[in-house]
């Protein structure tokens, strides 16, 4: 794992590592860096789909609940209004839509990120604490096909890393 001073360094390190043919790698930074996404060719659009589904379900559920409760389960003449007073059912439907969508957004994000995750090997690196302050890290995992403890280390040092460490797990 290589430590860098700036996002710039990290981003082109990532580019070169990708061009080298490394695939199984991850970058760690104190701030989100959009360029990294292309650098590491990340394409994950599952979350929006999840949120959409959640919203639709929430809306249908909300309206369904109201319809069922006031038309089927316990029909009552309330102020001479129709049992199915749809205009009056809109606000609640709207709220349940938002609620379900928001919940699926957060839970979906956590789930896809595999959080909460109490432990991860990178935490073994003492200086990694700086990843949440002002340092940038690029980590090439042993699972990677091209991974070789020595050559990879040399490669990373060649990227002008501030320091390269081996992550034990």
């Amino acid at each position, binding site marked *: 794992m290589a430590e860098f001073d700036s*996002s*710039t360094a*990290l981003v*082109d390190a990532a580019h070169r590592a990708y061009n080298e043919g490394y695939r199984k790698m991850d*970058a*760690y*930074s*104190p*701030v*989100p*860096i*959009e*360029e*990294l996404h292309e*650098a*590491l060719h*990340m394409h*994950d659009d599952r*979350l*929006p789909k999840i*949120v959409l589904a959640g*919203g639709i379900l929430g809306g249908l559920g*909300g309206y369904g609940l*109201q319809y069922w*409760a*006031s038309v089927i*389960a*316990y029909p009552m003449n*309330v102020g001479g209004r129709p049992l199915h*007073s749809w205009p*009056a059912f809109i*606000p*609640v439907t*709207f*709220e349940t839509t*938002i*609620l379900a*969508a*928001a*919940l699926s*957004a*957060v839970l*979906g*994000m*956590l789930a*896809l*990120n595999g*959080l*909460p*995750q*109490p*432990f991860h090997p*990178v*935490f073994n690196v003492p200086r*990694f604490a*700086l*990843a*949440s*302050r*002002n340092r940038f890290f690029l980590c090439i995992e042993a699972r990677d096909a091209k991974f070789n403890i020595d050559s990879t280390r040399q490669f990373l040092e060649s990227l002008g890393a501030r320091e390269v460490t081996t992550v034990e797990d």
Partner: protein
Amino acid sequence: MMTPDPVTRTPKEAHTPIAGAAGAGVPVIAPGHNFATVTDKISAIVLTRRTSLGWWFGFAIAFALANVLLVSIGYLVAVGVGVWGINQPVAWGFAIVNFVWWIGIGHAGTLISAILLLFKQTWRTSINRFAEAMTLFAVACAGLFPILHLGRPWLAYWLFPYSNTMNVWPQFRSPLVWDVFAVSTYATVSLLFWFVGLIPDLATLRDRSESRAGRVIYGALAMGWRGSAHHWHRYETAYLLLAGLATPLVVSVHTIVSFDFAISVIPGWHATVFPPYFVAGAIYSGFAMVLTLAIPIRRVYGLQDFITDRHLNNMAKILLVTGLIVAYGYMIEAFMAWYSANTYEVYMMRNRMTGPYGPLYWALLFCNVLTPQFLWSNKIRTNALLLFIISLIVNVGMWLERFVIVVTSLHRDFLPSSWGRYEPTMWDWGTYMGTIGLFLALLFLFLRFLPMISIFEMRTLVPDAKPDQGGAR
């Protein structure tokens, strides 16, 4: 998208919807800051510096007030809502006034963190965190009142749709049920939004905390966040989506609150202008409250670098705009009453201006319409002290508005034989002041134990957040 390229950061902002030309040149973060300084300065407030006497003092006062709330609630539940001044015909009093007021205040937080985010208003970054916290605490206070004002508060859960042996359900045509859904949804989403925003900072605190307890607690809350690029990727999508959802939500909440009145038949309540005018009012009071809080805080904690005059300036502008919308609302109310030529509406308006509660109406016009006009001046907008005073006046004015709407409409409706009046009792006041205490107490705890400014978002504002090449598209 959290990385505004240099272009969006300064000149372009002149064209962005809310932040006007004035003060656009002033950066949203003082120069000379880098990742380290930002991180250290903000997290230091929480981690290193020992609790100041001032904090203890303020917290003590707030906590004492919160206990007034406790006593008031105890007595209320013991004896009945009759301890308040409510009666026939004014069956709603302080409880509903305060409910609407608090909910309104809450709106600013969501607006800042969600809507301004969508509008790419980077200056929001340094205030959104505690604005959101303010939202949560305000909603907590607001949520108390609809429950307390019930004749039988212990049955409040009957308003939720839950399957029960009698197979009876809430009556979904009632705006009060809409309130239940709106407010609970609003509270939940605000909480999620706030917490999601906190995760990376909690990780920072975890990594920087010296105490073991700190590491454990913040670590648990951070859920093992490690700033992985993959995580950041989804994180940003989620955050953006949340913002997108919160935006219509914040509009819907006060719209629904306004339905409590607009749906009814009572002259002074039964008005179509209510939803937009309530939403504007909510944002208005909300920003007033943000200013009321931000100005002293940035002074006490020396955060002028992060909450710059530019922020105050922009918030003042929003205050001015929403203030004008609210003024328009008042105008339309009066105009419609006259234009409708409806006996009851006309009388209601006349009674509002000249009736027993007339002085309050004029006071509210002074607070909400006259006062904000000073904000046309750039000098006043950037003068923290004046801004602080104006924001206080607006807070009072917005409370008066709700009082006028609730009480003066009810106390003289259709049949003169049933005309009455309402006067708050000490228990009304106790409950109201108590919630202010609760609000402040929560706020003090927040300032002490969580980063009041979003660290990672602040980092994105410092120059080296952005790779020099490859990014610009």
